[in-house]
């Protein structure tokens, strides 16, 4: 697939493009600043855009804002955000949409998982880092519907939010797939969400709920 990388650290940028090229992808363009990234993406129109949250000029959340800009221009453009640590403030509005991923940078070292996540995003799915999902599914108030979930249900929900299928979840938690399905029903009931057969739509429903 054709990929554009927005990343200010040359070391990381070169390492990543080399890794991606070696795995059969085409790094069609790179950008060091948020502004130039938007221009490059417009010009190249890649299949996937990988963006570092923290970029020049201000080194705060310029990457996230560039992502928002790009999404505004093309709502289904697949975007994979990377960052050194969890920053949810500016990506949270993109989290519930399809074709979006948000991972910590060190996930890149698990090359296979990383390539999977890229594939899911390009297919319109979701790829969220477990730590980010944990931050999203943690109950913050007594009346938070998340507080009603059991520990196991929360675990399942986190995996759903990461974009895993029922089968993948069952394998990860060493459960029967039917057990995972019954957990899912219970979760949707407690969160008052209509169940959906399609994994992607399911994730989106969950994340939309969590975002509020």
């Amino acid at each position, binding site marked *: 697939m054709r990929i554009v990388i927005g990343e200010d*650290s040359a*070391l*990381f940028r*070169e*390492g*990543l493009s*080399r*890794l991606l090229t*070696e*795995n059969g992808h085409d790094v069609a363009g790179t950008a060091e600043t948020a502004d130039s990234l938007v221009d490059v993406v417009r010009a190249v129109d890649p299949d996937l855009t990988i963006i570092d949250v*923290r970029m020049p000029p201000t*080194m*705060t*959340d310029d990457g996230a804002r560039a992502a928002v800009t790009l999404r505004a221009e093309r709502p289904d453009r697949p975007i994979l955000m990377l960052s*050194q*640590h*969890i*920053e*949810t*403030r500016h990506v949270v509005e993109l989290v519930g949409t399809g074709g979006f991923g948000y991972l910590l*940078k*060190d996930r*890149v*070292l*698990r*090359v296979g998982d990383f390539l999977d996540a890229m594939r899911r995003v390009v297919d319109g799915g979701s790829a969220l880092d477990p730590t980010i999902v*944990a*931050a999203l599914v*943690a*109950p*913050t*108030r*007594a009346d938070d519907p998340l*507080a009603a979930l059991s520990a196991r249900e929360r675990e399942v929900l986190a995996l759903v939010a990461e974009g895993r299928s029922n089968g993948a979840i069952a394998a990860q938690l060493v459960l029967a797939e039917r057990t995972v399905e019954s957990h899912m029903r219970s979760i949707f009931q407690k969160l008052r969400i209509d169940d959906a057969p399609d994994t992607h739509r399911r994730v989106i429903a969950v994340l939309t709920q969590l975002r509020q």
Partner: protein
Amino acid sequence: MFRPRRLVAAATILFVAVAGVRAVLAYGPASIGDTADWPVSTGLLLPSLLLGCLVAARAPASPIGPALALTALMPALVFTVEDWGSTYGTDAPWPGARVVGVISGGVWAWLFLGFVALVLLFPDGPLPGRRWRLIWAAVPVSAALVNFAVATDLANFADGRFGDPPFRLPDPLRRGLNFGAFALFFVVLLTAASSLVVRYRRGDRPTRLRLGWLTVAALSVPILLATSWLGIVLGAPADVMYGGFLITMFILVPGAITVAILRHDLFDVDRLLGTTLSWLVTTLISAAVFAAVVFAVGNFFPDRVGITTAAFVTALALLPLHHWIHRTVARLVDPDRTVALARIRDFVRRVRDGQAEPEQIESVLRDALDDPGLRVLLRRPGEQLDVPDGAIPLRTGDSLVGALTLGTTSARRLRRAREAVVEARLPIEVSRLRVELREALAEVRASRARLMEDVAAERQRLERDLHDGAQQRLIAIGMRLRSVQYQLSPGVPAYRELDEVVETLEHTVAELRRIAHGVRPSRLDDGLAVALRDLVADSTLPVDLVVPELEVAESAATTVYFTVGEAIANALKHARATRISISVGVTDQVLRAVVRDDGVGGAREGFGLRSMRDRVASAGGEFTVDSPPGAGTSITVEIPCAS
């Protein structure tokens, strides 16, 4: 133009001339009266004249100087007329002695002229209005009428010294004239007295104080006059009764008036007068006590015992008596000073009792000394204080601690302010020390806050460096290792080894992230609310967290974040709580966080609480713990934050 000094000078010259004439009458061929008459009467009048001169010198614009001189001059003139008339029938009669003698029968009515003028002018000139101008004409007219009525009355010719009266009025007319003249005379006197009431009603505080003096003196005149007449009627020697009246009128009244006029400028005279008076009265009362005891005890015991007892009793009574009299006299003679010092003493007492702040000393001094421009300057630590000209320096030992500047300066005010400063030394010193302490504390707080901001900035930089520097490099190295790995075939041992190396690298990155988080939680980049939500997500207890999105300073946010974290840890570790509630918000520019649990309570001040307290204090905030045994623990953090 009104020239009080010239009038006083003219009156003085006239007085001297008239005194000369009387001296000739007394010691010349006519030899009128006793040899003591001239010195006694002149001596009686002299105080009024001298006081008039004193007032004219001290208060040149005041009409009271001439009025006082007039009170001396009029009697001198009256006495001269009387003495002149007395030469009739002697060996050396003066020209016109018979006529003058007849007139002198009622000439005493003119004695009051000076006094009435004084009452009408006191303390600052004639009263406005037509009615009050009319009385200036009525005074001489009524005196002349009385003089005429008395001089032409049959009684004046009863002893036949002056032969037959010049004319005889029919009895009813004579009685009518007598009654009318005296009635008018009294009405004029009463009206003059009533002007004091009018002035008192309209007057301000100094005017009222001055009038108080005059009123007492003025009231004594008609009373004494009536008393002397009554005494004469009852058969007392006329000279004695008349003498008492004269002494009152010519010494006490002018004295009181002079004090009233000059009081505000002659402070030392007040004190002198007060001290003299109080000792005089003390001496008199002591003597009376002594005499009374000697008399009372002497009837029963030998002389020596009586005298010893008397001395003992007197000595015992003397000091408290003197204190009491001194205070009373001081209050009477110099009420302003007494009131001012009493106010300051009262203030000092209230400061000592904690009812007043020592910093109020300036307003108290302004009030007490009646000087709105007064200022208390205090030397600030590390600064030099320039004492302005005319200011009163305040010292503790050898060091200059401040200065008192007056809005209006006069010798008297300076003297009084010096006395006040001595009384107010304690609150002045205390407020100086408190200013010093406050400034030192403020400086310490400010420098601590600066330090904390620096620390916070430093932590932020360190966290960035860890994330963007070391962490990023490690991941880049990891990626290169992966690239190298994929060039190998999966079967070779190096392939497996590289897998392990990359895994170690991942752990190292995670470790670095944890370290960076301890330095400064990077979630604070998303705001305090997000960071706190993240924090409580790790809690094994249910946490109710109420926190809106807040924009607060880095150091305040970090402090609240870490303190709340420690509070949660404490609740988990020690409190055996089942639930924690946290609320964070900003009200009135104070960031306030409350962490409450339902545990066993009774938290004791230990290392945990102290480190939280220190952390909060270093951010310029306050930390309070409420932890009654059995009723949970509530920890409140309040940090000022200017938004």
